[in-house]
């Protein structure tokens, strides 16, 4: 809701390979009156590697940030990153058990009460701000852009944990893009997995899976893919060249963060939204859009 303050957890990649996700998230939140208070001296949530080692370790790494946010007196942790979100939710789920909460606290310096909740920035924008409020702020509608909405695996699954949108046919990004004025076709692969964190150890798997997603986007005639996950963006954008050489394709599909598209429609420049930081340049699409806007 407008005026609410949220404990903001950017996640490691927002400081590195997904720097533009972090920047656009902050600018869009500000424009919407969503106050993001960065968690002081936050640390890594542990992501996938931690939970293959031990649930307790994984929980404790995420809990350190949740505990800091609780100390800051904030009721909701908000993160743009689905992996960080899942790590936070898993820690909170583990802490439902009194014995586990005790164990978590044994590993932490700060007291962890597990009274906070965790949500994605997308959920805040979709549920708390709402598409109507978004539409009112649109200065430059995304006219003529045909965008494939892509959610990936973790945002809405499993439904018991996600408590957000529909696990099989999520619509939040669809509705937001529609509110921004874009054309949103049915994207059958909106929840398929891109290959996740296997970029380093099993690159070929990522190239195969991400390639399928790009292929489907091309088949439905999408000008670009819009998503809400830094890892998905990395696999689909940064590795698009590798995919092309691996599969013998010549995809040239720009991959956007949802916050970047909101920002563009709100009138921020493509540079302000960090579109120049992508591996696949969206210049062609942007030019087409600018022309359409002039009409």
């Amino acid at each position, binding site marked *: 809701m407008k005026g609410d303050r949220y404990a903001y957890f950017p996640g490691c990649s927002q400081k*590195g390979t997904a720097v533009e996700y972090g920047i656009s998230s902050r600018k869009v939140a500000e424009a919407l009156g969503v106050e993001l208070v960065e968690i002081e001296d936050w*640390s890594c949530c542990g992501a996938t590697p931690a939970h293959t080692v031990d649930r307790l370790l994984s929980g*404790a790494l995420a809990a350190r940030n949740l505990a800091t946010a609780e100390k800051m007196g904030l009721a909701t942790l908000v993160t743009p990153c689905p992996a960080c979100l899942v790590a936070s939710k898993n820690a909170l789920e583990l802490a439902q058990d009194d014995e586990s909460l005790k164990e978590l606290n044994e590993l932490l310096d700060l007291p962890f009460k597990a009274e906070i909740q965790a949500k994605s920035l997308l959920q805040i924008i979709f549920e708390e701000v709402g598409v109507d409020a978004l539409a009112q702020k649109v200065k430059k509608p995304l006219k003529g852009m045909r965008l494939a909405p892509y959610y990936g695996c973790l945002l809405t699954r499993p439904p018991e944990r996600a408590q957000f949108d529909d696990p099989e046919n999520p619509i939040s990004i669809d509705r937001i893009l529609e509110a921004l004025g874009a054309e949103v076709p049915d994207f059958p692969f909106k929840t398929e997995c891109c290959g996740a964190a296997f970029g*380093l150890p099993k690159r070929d798997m990522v190239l195969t899976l991400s390639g399928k997603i790009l292929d489907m986007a091309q088949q439905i005639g999408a000008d670009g893919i819009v998503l809400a996950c830094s890892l998905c963006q990395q696999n689909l954008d940064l590795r698009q060249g590798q995919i092309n050489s691996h599969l013998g394709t010549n995809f040239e599909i720009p991959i956007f963060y949802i916050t970047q598209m909101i920002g563009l429609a709100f009138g921020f420049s493509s540079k302000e939204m960090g579109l120049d930081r992508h591996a696949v340049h969206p210049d062609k699409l942007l030019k087409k859009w600018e022309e359409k806007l002039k009409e």
Partner: protein
Amino acid sequence: MEILDLASIDRDFIKAVEEESGQDISLCYQCGNCTAGCPYAFAFDIPVHQIMRLIQVGQKEEVLRSHAIWLCATCETCTTRCPRNIDVARVMDTLRIMARREGMVSEAGIRRFHDDFLDSVKRHGRVYEVGLLLKYNLQSGRPFADAELGPKLLGKGKLHYFPENIKGVGAVKEIFERFAKKRGL
């Protein structure tokens, strides 16, 4: 094909998987939905539903030494669609933890990636992406893998050549150390 001696069912293993994962393995009726929807099945040595079946017949070695459990990316497709309400992804996670503990990890590369990742977190409080990439690729004996990605990242504020430690790096390190002590590692 070898004959499976049905007397070899390791009931302690079944119990351990059930306790650690919080899932009732006997619920599985082998419909195969987990395999049908798994995006990674093409790379698996044993399909997911057969992993579940092997747990049901207590074949510890075969399960824990499988590559499949490491090629699972926890995308939750299986869990979301399981008609028996089994959190299959959680079972796979449990099997990875057990395989580590028992020294039966068949995918050394993935384990090392996870170890390097956590090592980076332990050292700096956050993941230092460049360091992780270099260290992992060097140890894998392919220092130039992904080298072509460099120019795509260069000058875009995406690469940091030196790690930036957080202030509370000590507290993060403590989490690892207290954890190691607790588990007697």
